[in-house]
């Protein structure tokens, strides 16, 4: 600090201080001294009282020691006799959701590949199935409720190779070649029920194949009770038109093969609910009921794909528009869970 710079202000302060004449009143000083002395005496008395008091001397012997012993005994008792078990479930982290395990029953029906002249018919094994990409075929499937057609093989026209393969469980469009041909659709039908279960779609869109024979085999569980919805085991052979076997034999891949899901076995009679509509029938998946459920007026064709025990996809063609509905089985009741048109691919995954 520059003393000269602040000398004017500091000189003022010192001048005022020197001129100050604050008189110290000794009487006041003595009064405060007496006050302090009184206070000191009080402090002394309190100290002496604390030191001489019976409580101060014997408080530990009277309370402290027994309390310590009691605490020790309690601690020993707690460690030896008390078994506090904490359930592991309370603290274990929640296990991650396991992916659904597919059993053989749940797997789609194996369909043999169409036989070719030059090559033996291909059959998908499990590994191939797992690796199969669930791509939707472009072919639209029309279901018909004629059991005769499904069981009776269709004679191929100008067939040079026989192609047997799997059908997709939920296929929308199958593209094998540049040309898309609408195949014939077959629907498996119970003898007693009108449940369209099997969809038969063949990829006859391939290049220039005039005649290919597709053998579709689908196993369905046997009927257990009266109320059980059971699609029958059907075998359908579809005869595509205007197909050339030579080209199809080279371009058909496992990924393009349609796969058909196995129908599930139900032990009790399902009840199909659509909003406030409840249909109590084991043939609820027939065309008529599905029309009610999905509010379709005149469905051209309906096809049911069994995804699992608790899920079914229904394909409805109406006025040239294909709609897909997912049915969830909740407490033995089939309920439409989604009304929107959706892609099968997302559902299957």
């Amino acid at each position, binding site marked *: 600090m520059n003393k000269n710079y602040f000398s004017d202000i500091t000189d003022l*302060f010192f001048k005022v201080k020197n001129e100050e004449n604050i008189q110290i009143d000794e009487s*006041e000083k003595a009064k*405060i001294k007496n006050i302090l002395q009184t206070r*000191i005496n009080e402090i002394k008395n309190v100290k002496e009282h604390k030191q001489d008091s019976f409580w101060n001397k014997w408080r530990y012997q009277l309370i402290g020691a027994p309390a310590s012993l009691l605490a020790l005994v309690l601690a020993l008792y707690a460690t030896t006799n008390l078994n506090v078990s904490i359930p592991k479930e309370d603290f274990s982290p929640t296990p991650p959701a396991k992916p659904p395990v597919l059993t053989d029953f749940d797997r789609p029906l194996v369909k043999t590949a169409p036989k070719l002249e030059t090559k033996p018919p291909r059959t998908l094994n499990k590994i191939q199935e797992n690796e199969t990409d669930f791509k939707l075929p472009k072919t639209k499937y029309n279901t018909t409720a004629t059991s005769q057609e499904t069981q009776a093989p269709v004679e191929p026209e100008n067939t040079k190779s026989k192609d047997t393969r799997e059908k997709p469980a939920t296929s929308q469009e199958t593209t094998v070649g540049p040309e898309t041909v609408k195949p014939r659709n077959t629907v498996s039908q119970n003898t007693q029920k009108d449940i369209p279960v099997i969809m038969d779609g063949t990829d006859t869109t391939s290049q220039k194949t005039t005649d290919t024979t597709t053998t579709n085999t689908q196993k369905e569980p046997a009927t257990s009770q009266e109320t059980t919805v059971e699609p029958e085991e059907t075998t359908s052979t579809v005869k595509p038109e205007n197909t050339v076997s030579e080209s199809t034999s080279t371009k058909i891949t496992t990924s393009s093969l349609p796969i058909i899901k196995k129908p599930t076995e139900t032990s009790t009679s399902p009840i199909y609910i659509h909003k406030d509509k409840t249909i109590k029938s084991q043939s609820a998946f027939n065309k008529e009921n599905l029309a009610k459920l999905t509010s379709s007026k005149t469905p051209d064709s309906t096809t049911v794909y069994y995804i699992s025990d608790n899920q079914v996809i229904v394909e409805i063609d109406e006025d040239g528009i294909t709609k897909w509905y997912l049915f969830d089985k909740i407490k033995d009741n089939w309920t439409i869970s989604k009304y929107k048109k959706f892609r099968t691919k997302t559902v299957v995954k």
Partner: protein
Amino acid sequence: MPNNTELESERRLIETAKVDPEKFMDLYTKYYDQIYRYVYRRTGGNKDETHDLVSQTFIDALSHIQSFKWQGYPFSSWLYKIAHNNVIKWYRKAEKSNYVPIEEAKNVSDKNRDQQELTDASLAKDQINAIMEKLEEDEREILRLKFFEGLSNIEIAEIMGLSISNIGVKVFRTLKKAKGFLPTKHDLKQSNE
């Protein structure tokens, strides 16, 4: 600031007073005048208030001497701190009761003054009062402790609860600010005319 020998003897006296409260009276005798003057200035010359505040300061010191920790500062710094807090409390009470001690102190000083006593010192006192009114409270307190009480920056820092470097900066800035409030020679000439 006392030297090391004085500080050491003071430390021993404090340690003794902690054990024997009677020894506190030695500390009281030693620092009464300093604390009295400080409080007297702060109260604007109000003797009754000064008496109460000084007694309260020493009673507080006696009651809490067990908590006093020696840090190398004089015991007076601790007493100043207690007195400073008591004065602040008193000011707060005075503000609530619309009691303005500064103005009263001015009047008292003016009453006791004759025309002949209006010397340079009295003019200086008026100037200081005018400057102090324009400063903030913490700035006024720093200047009081620095120039009226003659305390070092270390002691002021202990009393104000600030760091030593911060006190140094504050002293410099406050002096610079106070210097700006000083009337210039031109102002003095105009006032004389």
